[in-house]
């Protein structure tokens, strides 16, 4: 399931300044309070005219931390960002070891997104595997990649990292916890 939030309508078209960012963070958490765990939230920047780094530092950065809290477990996607704002987000992602999914679209879950932020080679390989196979567990990855010599626990640790970064979802299947991509196609370094 996904929840679509039009930021221009809910927060305004000028998303600037640290103080406003802090206020918007609180407002957004309140709006999202009733969203079930595991859902995707699409923060739509359509019709937003200004986004500054100070605002994003006080709104986007803590929102991702809040979303990763197991009590919330939400998966944000930044929708319809203008290209001139991506430098600030790249910087924030780097400073805070976060990754953001940036997609374009109007309604429904987008089919592809660009990754803002960086993954180390191991994380990248793991994300590629999840994107390739869809729903998958650490044990299944061990079986599918015997040549890697990596055990199920190590794969699971990598999957857990990607889950914390809000790049893959996690569900329950009996005693297993399979991970799935949020979006079918993610362009890394796109």
């Amino acid at each position, binding site marked *: 399931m996904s929840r679509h939030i039009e930021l221009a309508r809910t927060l305004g078209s000028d998303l*600037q*300044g*640290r103080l*406003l960012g802090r206020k918007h963070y609180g407002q957004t958490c309140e709006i999202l309070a009733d969203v079930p765990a595991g859902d995707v939230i699409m923060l739509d920047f359509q019709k937003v*005219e*200004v986004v500054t*780094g100070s605002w994003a*530092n006080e709104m986007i950065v803590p929102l991702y931390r809040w979303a990763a809290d197991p009590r919330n477990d939400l998966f944000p996607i930044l929708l319809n960002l203008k290209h001139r704002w991506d430098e600030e987000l790249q910087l924030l992602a780097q400073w805070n070891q976060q990754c953001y999914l940036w997609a374009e679209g109007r309604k429904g879950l987008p089919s592809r997104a660009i990754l803002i932020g960086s993954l180390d080679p191991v994380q990248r390989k793991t994300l590629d595997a999840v994107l390739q196979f869809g729903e998958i567990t650490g044990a299944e990855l061990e079986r599918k990649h015997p040549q890697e010599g990596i055990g199920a626990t190590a794969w699971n640790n990598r999957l857990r990292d990607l889950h914390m970064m809000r790049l893959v979802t996690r569900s329950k299947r009996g005693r297993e916890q399979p991970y799935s991509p949020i979006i079918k196609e993610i362009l890394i370094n796109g």
Partner: protein
Amino acid sequence: MVMNRDWLTVQLVEQLQERIENDQEIRSIVASLTGTTLPGLMEYGCLRKSLVNSIPSLPPAIVSSTIGKALSAVPSALGLRTVGAARPARRRIDVQPAEFYVASSEDDLDDNWKAFSIRFARSAEKVGLKKLVANGLRASLHEMTENALIHSQSDIPVLVGYRVLEETAQFCVADVGIGVLASLQSCSDFSHLGFDHQAIKEALRDGVSRLGRNRGGMGFRQVFKSLAEQWGILRFRSGEGCIVMDGTDLETDRGSEHFPPGLPGFQVTVTCRSRDLAPSEPLL
């Protein structure tokens, strides 16, 4: 750069300050002034506030100028009148040649502030700046004002002013707080800084604020971004340091620095021109 000896420019303010320190008279110089720049007038206000002994009032030519009249509309310790009510806040977003705003706390960044900053952007557009540039300048104005409110630690409200003329938009944010050096030194990441000009240069870098490295400090980025591909002049004065960048290549490390007499707080002037045309009057 246009120079005019009868104008209240930032350079003249520095010279007046040196004369005061050397017990030389300044009254006749001030009395003969016929015009003022925006930062000149605002830094003169900061100088007056910082001195124990009073300095001369500005002559009618300054007070009745476009900038002078606009400054008279707001009561400010750094302005032309310190008491009295402000004129009723304008709700309209019509263009203005010059305007001032006084902010004492974050609460003052309200709907009146929003209307003020929209008027600035619209006024900048009216004199020939592109909408994207004007909106970028408006965001810069917001960032610089918020910075002053958050970091200056002063009881004296921050004074914000803008003016526009022929393809040029300019704003100035002035406070008489603790200054950039003391602000950064309060954080262990920057305790090694010893001079005002070093502190200003450090503060201009991405991710630098008294909260620590990479924990904020995105405000100046917006300033540089809004001036990208424009002809800009940036001036940052704090304590005994001053950094000026002029041109289209606004690299922090390439800014020229000089060492004026000490002035408390932080004074930021951002000037944006759509092209390198010779201004009809001094800008700084």
